């Protein structure tokens, strides 16, 4: 796909094959104090042209990492390089990062067009395009983000989704080396989030821009990103393609974070997993005997007629767009378990059923 940037210049790595070298190289980042969460030795490679998601709970350091990459935040140790060149000593403006903020951070006293044109207008005279050229490029970018015709509006006259698209156009206008988005859809309602997600994916396919975005929404990360980096407490827990992370969480934290699981306290004895006195199956290889945690995703178990599996009791049926789930309780476990329930007919709260464990994700404690 050879999409050309509005300026007639190849935007970012457009036209290049994916994975053409390392776009952003982060090495051993340590940040112990300051405004944001701490980082405790973060290393990460973002391929050129890749769309990578930083996923983690709040306080995990994902936004801090993004801001360090942008140069908006200082750090104690480590290095950040773009396209193999160190960013040390470069000011925020010299790095060529397009940054999109959660709350848009638009210049509200400027029109949409002036917002988008800002990055080109503040260039020194030598590198600044002519006024007519700036206008042409800005209008073309507004078309790209599907806001053609709104260039004379002020940000206050736009919806949240429109404002975020202006912010993206403004960031793209400087033809950044990397595009960084900090929870770009966090302030929008669910429907708009979903539309913009799909739309961002399309824009990325057209521009091939090396992109990192921060989110706490795993659906957003999994659906949008080429690769996902999961952070917890200032460390990267796992980096990989969404399918790989989903299929094989490397650590207990990742297992607890993806797939909406119920965490259950179990014991492993002689290679068998026991839940409240019931044997639920063979323990995965490498899990030592002793107390352990099992992360049960709603699809990992099934309801069977009473008498089979582990005795359980239906507490409630939950209808949602993703399908029906049953909330069941098991003797010996305080936690209620959410299980997919594809055939809820005839089932009601209070029924005695059996729970058959099909897939065990067990991690040693600690």
């Amino acid at each position, binding site marked *: 796909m050879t999409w050309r940037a509005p300026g007639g210049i190849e935007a970012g790595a457009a036209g290049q094959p994916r994975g053409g070298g390392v776009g952003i190289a982060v090495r051993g980042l340590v940040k112990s104090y300051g405004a944001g969460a701490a980082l405790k030795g973060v290393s990460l490679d973002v391929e050129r042209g890749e769309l990578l998601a930083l996923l983690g709970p709040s306080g995990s350091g994902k936004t801090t990492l993004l801001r360090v990459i942008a140069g908006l935040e200082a750090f104690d140790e480590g290095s950040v390089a773009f396209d193999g060149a160190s960013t040390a000593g470069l000011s925020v403006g010299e790095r060529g990062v397009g940054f999109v903020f959660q709350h848009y951070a638009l210049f509200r*006293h400027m029109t949409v067009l002036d917002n988008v044109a800002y990055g080109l207008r503040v260039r020194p005279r030598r590198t600044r395009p002519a006024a007519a050229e700036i206008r042409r490029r800005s209008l073309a970018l507004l078309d790209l983000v599907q806001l053609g015709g709104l260039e004379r509006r002020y940000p206050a006259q736009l919806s949240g989704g429109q404002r975020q698209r202006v912010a993206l156009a403004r960031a793209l206008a400087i033809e950044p080396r990397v595009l960084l988005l900090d929870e770009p859809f966090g302030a929008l309602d669910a429907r708009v989030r979903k539309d913009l997600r799909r739309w961002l994916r399309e824009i990325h396919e057209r521009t091939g821009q090396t992109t990192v975005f921060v989110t706490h929404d795993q659906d957003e990360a999994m659906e949008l990103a080429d690769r996902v980096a999961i952070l917890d407490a200032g460390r990267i827990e796992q980096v990989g393609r969404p399918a790989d992370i989903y299929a094989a969480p490397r650590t207990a934290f990742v297992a607890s974070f993806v797939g909406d699981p119920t965490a259950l306290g179990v014991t492993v004895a002689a290679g068998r997993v026991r839940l409240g006195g019931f044997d639920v199956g063979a323990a995965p290889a490498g899990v030592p005997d002793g107390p352990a945690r099992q992360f049960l995703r709603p699809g990992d178990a099934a309801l069977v007629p009473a008498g089979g599996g582990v005795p359980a009791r239906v507490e409630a049926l939950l209808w949602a767009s993703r399908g029906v789930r049953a909330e069941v309780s098991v003797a010996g476990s305080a936690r209620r378990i959410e299980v997919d329930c594809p055939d809820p007919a005839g089932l009601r709260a209070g029924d005695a059923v059996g729970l058959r464990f099909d897939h065990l994700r067990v991690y040693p404690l600690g």
Partner: protein
Amino acid sequence: MSILTAQAAVPRRRRRAGALPGFGPAMGFTLFYLGLIVLFPLAVLAWRATGTGAAGAARIVTDPRILAAFRVSFGTAFAAACIDTVFGVLLAWVLTRYRFPGRRLLDALVDLPFALPTAVAGIALASLYGPNGWLGAPLLRLGVRVAYTPLGILVALIFVGLPFVVRSVQPLVVDLDREVEEASATLGASRARTLRAVVLPTLAPAVLTGFALTFARAVGEYGSVIFIAGNAPYVSEILPLVIVQRLEEYDYAGATGVAVAMLLVSFAVLLAINLVQAFGRRRHGHG
């Protein structure tokens, strides 16, 4: 009229009150209060001034001594407002943006010119800037005479006007969105450019308000000025002093005439500033 007739035609559907009632009593009280406290005295003033007649009014506005006082009063007030605006914005910025020891104390000090009786301020400034004062003596050796000149008036007006700008601008500096400045920086703008293109336009309405308040206060200032001004006719005589002099000569008509002329000029200036603000608000699509 149309509201009245609409009410008459559909008596049940009166003005929609909205979820939060209170417009009626609030508006009524506002009008009553504004009328009693502001408009009524001003009306009396205007009525007293009519005693001078058209010829009297012409005599007042063409009296060279009064014209000179007009220039001194409005000139120094304008200059003081300009200077206070620059330094007041800077002070508000430093007090809100940075954390340093003694910040709260400094913040409290800003209000002191408010609280101080203006005569106290005037006497303090006069002795400080007088020919034998701590600042006046060295300045005099440099050839700068502050006390008993328009420069002295300016110093006094700057002193009493400073809190207005600081206190008008401070809340907006607190509310400034840091991310907007960061966005400007990532887009390649220098710090100076960010301040000029992004920060100042956001602060502009409050800066204008502070300017207007300082200016209004400076035009009417009396106590702190007369001690340091020297009050030389045609040179360092301010309008409020001219009015007081007229009153002491039992020339009530003359005093009110000058007062009304002064009031009209002040009102015109404040109205102009308000219009500029309203224009700005409309343009920026908020408010």
